[in-house]
């Protein structure tokens, strides 16, 4: 593929053939070598062919091959001429990360790691084939799908600040539960308050290093402070919403002209486009509510273990989402539809969409590491608004297949290696542990270095794990 290096960490895929705009990849030379091994650059090109795409088809430093759109991809579309695509959001709608701050320090945890991990594992189920202890009626579920984290807080699961410190204030406007199929409801209704499997986790971490003292202070972070990270999504409900609308769009528009069947889409202004957005918003709200319930249980369990513990939500960010946002296009502010698939919003100071507490600094950006490696808190920037429709990376990005990992690593050995590093872990199975070995991901340090150098988000703090619960 014709790939032009424009400057350090910036590559262009020139506009050619059916491409309506050029492709832009924000990655280092080291990462580009890995990226070229799969089809992700081809996917950046395919996205550049979709109607109404604005500026560039963008890929970030954690790019890897996805379905239709690459993971680590960002694309914005014109509201009149553009499309909305379930493939641009992904099957795990609003797979997202919430970070909780505590008033504990590392030394409070060190002697109790095993106890904490066992307690949290029991309290917060992965929910695989077993369902959840959180029971909800069909009617209440409709309200939850439209009200997200705010609805469950009002039901007694948390405090107002929890949802205010969540992207979109804890629920996306425009959700309409009547657009979610009964099949999707059936898959999700028993799964609220569950983590799921794959790369989802609950981690007790500590602040290992502060890079920007002033902003860390504004976020309420200090060295050795204990924080808790929740990484999960919309479970079966979101997966089914994606699948349902892929089918509906295929029926209505066909896929013969598409370079890849998973790029199926509908015009933003069409009925089907609007319906998908309303259903996607429900799934996103399900994910916000899911993490709110988990937050409530984490509080309960931690209070049992540490009587005087205080737990506050720092922030909660979406990784797989489509949103209507205002961005500068050709010098003019304009509302567009931004797809972020495996990407995090990274708004700088003054944006009205971010909570008041962060309006002077820019929003917190949460980047989960892989099991046993560091995670990062970064801050959003104006530069991201210029370059990437206010977006940055979402994680490290896989480099090795699950089957490859199973051939190379053993769960028991990984647990032992992590224990030697002072990390206690409990997973649903040895197999799921081996598949998520830290070695199957790109180096998070390299990914974070690139976005920091580019200025599309800046390093604030590095977090290291102490206790990990995996689905």
């Amino acid at each position, binding site marked *: 593929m014709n790939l032009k290096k424009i400057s350090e960490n910036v590559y262009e895929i020139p506009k050619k053939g059916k491409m309506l705009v050029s492709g832009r990849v924000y990655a280092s030379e080291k990462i580009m070598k890995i990226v070229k091994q799969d089809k992700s650059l081809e996917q950046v090109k395919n996205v550049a062919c979709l109607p109404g795409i604005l500026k560039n088809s963008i890929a970030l430093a954690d790019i890897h091959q996805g379905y239709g759109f690459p993971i680590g991809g960002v694309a914005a579309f014109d509201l009149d001429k553009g499309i909305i695509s379930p493939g641009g959001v992904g099957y795990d709608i609003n797979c997202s990360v919430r970070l909780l701050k505590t008033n504990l320090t590392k030394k409070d945890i060190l002697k109790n790691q095993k106890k904490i991990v066992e307690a949290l594992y029991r309290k917060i189920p992965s929910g*695989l084939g077993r369902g959840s202890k959180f029971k909800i009626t069909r009617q209440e579920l409709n309200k939850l799908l439209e009200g997200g984290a705010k609805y469950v807080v009002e039901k007694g699961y948390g405090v107002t600040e929890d949802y205010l410190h969540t992207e979109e204030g804890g629920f996306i406007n425009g959700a309409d539960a009547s657009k979610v199929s009964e099949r999707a409801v059936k898959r999700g209704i028993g799964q609220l308050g569950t983590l799921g499997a794959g790369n989802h986790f609950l981690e007790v971490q500590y602040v290992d290093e502060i890079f920007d003292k002033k902003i860390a202070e504004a976020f309420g972070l200090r060295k050795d402070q204990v924080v808790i990270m929740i990484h999960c999504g919309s479970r079966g409900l979101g997966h089914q919403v994606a699948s349902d609308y892929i089918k509906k769009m295929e029926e209505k528009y066909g896929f013969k002209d598409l370079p890849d*069947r998973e790029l199926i889409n509908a015009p933003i202004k069409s009925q089907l486009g609007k319906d998908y957005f309303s259903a996607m918003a429900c799934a996103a709200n399900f994910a916000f509510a899911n993490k709110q319930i988990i937050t409530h249980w984490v509080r309960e369990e931690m209070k049992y273990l540490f009587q005087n513990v205080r737990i506050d939500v720092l922030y909660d960010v979406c990784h797989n989402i489509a949103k209507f946002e205002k961005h500068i296009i050709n010098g003019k502010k304009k509302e567009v539809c931004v797809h972020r698939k495996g990407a995090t919003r990274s708004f700088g100071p003054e944006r009205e969409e971010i909570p008041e507490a962060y309006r002077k600094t820019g929003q917190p950006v949460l980047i989960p590491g892989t099991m046993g490696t560091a995670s990062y808190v970064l801050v959003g920037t104006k530069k991201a608004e210029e370059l990437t429709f206010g977006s940055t990376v979402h994680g490290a990005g896989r480099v090795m297949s699950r089957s490859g990992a199973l051939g190379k690593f053993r769960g028991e050995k990984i647990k032992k290696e992590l224990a030697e590093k002072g990390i206690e872990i409990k997973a649903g*199975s040895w197999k799921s542990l081996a598949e998520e070995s830290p070695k199957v991901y790109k180096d998070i340090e390299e990914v974070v270095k690139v976005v920091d150098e580019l200025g599309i988000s800046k390093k604030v703090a590095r977090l290291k794990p102490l206790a990990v619960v995996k689905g």
Partner: protein
Amino acid sequence: MKNGKFKFLPHTADIKFQAYGKNPEEVFENSALVLKKILVEDKKIRKKIKKNIIAKGEDYESLLYNFLEEFLILFDSEGFVLSEIKNINIQEDLKLKAEVVGDRAENYQVNEHIKAITYNEMFVKKENSKWISQVVVDV
């Protein structure tokens, strides 16, 4: 795989497989058995619960997608895990009926959750005298 019913192929983020059979029914059956293997490996699942599955499609690919998706819905909503396909029939108008047996997943160690069947690199075709399916599932 030893008996040549299916095989896993390398994929960076998710799980890719091919299944084989002498006719569409057999290739569909073997594809469903791969889903079972992803969830619970080679563990023997008791035949305690019977389910009837109905699916339809525009072509073999969408029929396979819809058929396999039924197992994800049964797993998520009822905790059902497959043991064996008793009967499967695909009509010429691409309507599928199957009778399957299995058990509640809570009685077994489940390794993985399958988020979705995808159309990524999917095909169902006849090659020489053999039928082959290829599927990537999102996990």
